[in-house]
């Protein structure tokens, strides 16, 4: 037998469920998942790994689109496989009946429950929408393809 240095896989999953808190905040309720939102951003915006929270700066605007975006369907709890913890929204993000004439290429996932703190930034090819629907389908929720992975 021997020991192996590692970050425990259970810990990675528990990071996604806020089981551990090395700081002093936030104080969390029990048993209820936070509410996550998805906002769209213009190609001229500057979202990246340094983004800390949702911002209206650079967000798309147009007919049928509400500032802040849409709620993310979160019906599947984070899980792990191998040494990777992962999570993916359980449904596509669908912006129905919108007109977004200025090019956009980014979606920000953020935690509305926790002061709109940023979760992740995802980019795609530049798009516009005219009296139509923008659908963003998620990758498969596996340890190699999930939208968020901690390995």
């Amino acid at each position, binding site marked *: 037998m021997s020991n192996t*240095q*590692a*970050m425990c896989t259970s810990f*990675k999953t528990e990071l996604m469920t806020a089981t551990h808190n090395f700081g002093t905040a936030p104080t969390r309720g029990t048993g209820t998942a936070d509410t996550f939102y998805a906002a769209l951003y213009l190609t001229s915006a500057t979202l990246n790994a340094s983004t800390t929270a949702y911002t209206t700066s650079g967000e798309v605007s147009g007919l049928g689109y509400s500032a802040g975006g849409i709620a993310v369907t979160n019906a599947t709890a984070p899980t792990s496989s191998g040494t990777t913890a992962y999570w*993916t929204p359980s449904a596509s993000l669908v912006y129905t*009946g919108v*007109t977004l004439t200025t090019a956009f290429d980014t979606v920000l996932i953020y935690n509305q429950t926790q002061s709109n703190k940023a979760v*992740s*930034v*995802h*980019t*795609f*090819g530049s*798009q*516009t*929408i*005219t*009296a*139509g*629907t*923008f*659908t*963003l*389908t*998620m*990758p498969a929720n596996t340890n190699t*393809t*999930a*939208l*968020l*992975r*901690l*390995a």
Partner: protein
Amino acid sequence: MALITTTKGEMDDSLLEKREGSVDNDNELTRWVEYWLDGELVHRSVHVHLKKNVFADGMAAMFG
């Protein structure tokens, strides 16, 4: 015959010119459809299927 939501209200698709396209790369598979009326874009919808994820590599530091 199908009704298409356009900037001018719902219109019969037989009155419109339909254009479609797609992009497939490492990051996404995207399909778009446009409807044009007399040279004017009156409807555009897009479906992006993300392929890539964001990945964080958790490391436990060694002592010494």
